[in-house]
């Protein structure tokens, strides 16, 4: 069902929604950009509709809402274990199609990748509803190349134009709320149909790519800062620590913390042994996971083409460019 709701009315609707949900959306954090006098556009909890930023891509992705950067799994004492039990409200996330689609990749890893579901992820994930945002695309957006420009997985869609908010509500439970504030109107989500920059992932990526010298360029360029992975909505690697409290080392907590295949120490073993020491090897591992290995296992691409890895890389390393190179190498091999 579609609705047109005037802005002030929508603010009331939002207020009512907030009573039942924790709402996350893109916001501007003033002066919180890395550089002085710059802002950070990112996801955060919002109190009012006016805080939401509709016209900018967030630097970080919404994954941290369901997969916190640092999460206490349980507390331990000498003879007991305690799980954090705080009961929270359900969660609403305002997101573009690519970001909503990224949850499909997250779900695959956390819920379908082995015999057990990840209970910590599931606990948060099952509380989430999405409100879809329209999108006109940004620099480094590749959603249309991956089909992640479109989604069906949303409870409502909102598009703020001039003095009104145009909505489509799919969630039966929400229809009452929306009809209370707006008049019915024909609304269909607006998606990006073509990206300014594009790539095409080769159908077949041969193992020969592993040893190819193309990766040595990244050994020279990549600094191993890990930004590309922390901003990626589909990177899910984590590590687990037991923290013992300083004043009583018998007490403590077990935490899980994001990890990154681009950063030193990833999958490091006793004696400092690691699988991939060179940044080129790490980049290969990351890129092939995004555009090939995950698909072999789950049948769809992990990468949703949001382009955040490119937005964030201070060395201007481009995923698009890397995929182009792989395509060319594969095409060359086809010919031979």
């Amino acid at each position, binding site marked *: 069902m579609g609705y047109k709701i005037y802005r002030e009315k929508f603010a009331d609707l939002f207020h009512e929604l907030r009573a039942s949900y924790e709402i996350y959306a893109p916001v501007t*954090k003033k*002066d*919180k*950009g*890395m*550089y*002085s*006098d710059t802002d*950070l556009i*990112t996801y955060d909890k919002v109190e009012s509709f006016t805080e939401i930023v509709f016209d900018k891509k967030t*630097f*970080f992705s919404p994954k941290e809402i369901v997969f*916190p*950067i*640092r999460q206490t799994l349980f507390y331990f004492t000498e003879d007991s274990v305690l799980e954090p039990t705080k009961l929270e409200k359900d969660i609403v996330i305002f997101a573009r199609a690519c970001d909503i689609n990224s949850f499909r990749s997250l779900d695959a890893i956390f819920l379908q990748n082995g015999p057990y579901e990840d209970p910590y992820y599931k606990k948060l994930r099952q509380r989430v509803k999405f409100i879809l945002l329209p999108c006109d695309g940004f620099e480094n957006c590749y959603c249309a190349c991956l089909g992640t420009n479109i989604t069906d997985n949303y409870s409502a869609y909102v598009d703020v134009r001039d003095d009104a908010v145009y909505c489509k509500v799919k969630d039966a439970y929400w229809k009452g709320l929306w009809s209370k504030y707006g008049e019915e109107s024909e609304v269909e989500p607006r998606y990006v149909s073509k990206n300014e920059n594009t790539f095409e992932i080769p159908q077949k990526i041969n193992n020969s790519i592993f040893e190819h010298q193309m990766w040595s360029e990244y050994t020279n360029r990549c600094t191993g*800062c*890990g*930004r590309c992975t*922390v901003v990626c909505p589909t990177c899910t690697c984590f590590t687990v*620590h037991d*923290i*013992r409290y*300083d004043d009583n080392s018998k007490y403590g907590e077990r*935490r899980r*913390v*994001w*990890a*990154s295949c681009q*950063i*030193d*120490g990833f999958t490091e073993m006793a004696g400092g042994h690691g699988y991939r020491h060179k940044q080129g090897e790490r980049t290969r591992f990351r890129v092939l996971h995004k555009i090939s290995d995950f698909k072999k296992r789950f049948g769809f691409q992990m990468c949703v083409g949001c382009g955040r890895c490119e937005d964030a890389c201070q060395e201007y390393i481009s995923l698009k460019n890397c995929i182009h190179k792989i395509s060319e190498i594969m095409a060359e091999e086809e010919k031979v």
Partner: protein
Amino acid sequence: MSVDTKKLVKNAYRVTKERYLTALRVRVPGGHLDTKQMTLISRIADRYGRGEVHITTRQGFEIPGIPMSRMEEVNREITPLLDALQKTTGIDLKVTFEGYPAAGTRNVSACIGNRVCPFANYDTTRLAQDIEGIIYPNDFHVKIAVSGCPNDCIKAHMQDVGILGQVEPLYDSKRCIGCKACVDNCRKRVTGALKFHNFTVQRDHEKCTGCGECILKCPTAAWTRGEKYYSVVIMGRTGKKNPRLAAPFLRWVARDVVLKICENLYSYIDKHIDRSLPKEHVGNIVDRTGYPVFRDEVLQNVDLGERAMVAKHINFGGYEYHSNASF
């Protein structure tokens, strides 16, 4: 030909080695000017000088080869430069067609700052212009430079007053992935103010320079920018007697404190300057009165704020040409 050299010097010209030829120094506070002014400077150099411009160490321009007989014409020509100076600094020069009203207080120079540089903690050009607005025109011989961060690319440590931008880094442990990029960088490039303990970063505020590099290094924005602060170093100088680096005077003070102490500095000089000398340099005045007198007068009526640190005493050191050398 009769020339009042005192007036000439005040007008930012100089007596050069070539008789009857002078050179004009153009102020560029903050080292930033628009291309219209550049064009005018080059036109003046073409029309009155030798078609050459010298870039000064203080980020101004010096136009050499101007006949002294044409100074009045040049003064009229530079009116748009003086207008621009008024506009950027807020100074009221009263008359702008009579040339620069003073030259003792030198151009306030600045590194490129946060309009371009990722490391800069603030807009250095703006601060330089605001300081210029407070201290110019003035005959006292004072050199001030402002730097965007403690790396001090503008060499604020060679000035009477050097301002270095600081930022208070704020740590949100919930966002930290423990990559230690901040810790390693601070140890290697800065002062080693960070420690990694129990999977969490700890910052030693005493050691922290407020450079903000940890914020730049952090991939997750666990470090973000807090308040802007400034540190002030004083009485650095070159010269033929006792060159020395400026010494730390204030740390973690706010922008308005910086402006206020620049203003107070001039009352201090006015009170203590030895008027029997042609021009006494502020560094020499401080050598005479001692640091405590300087400190108390410059900090008069200044609300330093909670975070401020003030040097208890200063040993300026430096070296003496005649005694510290071993040839």
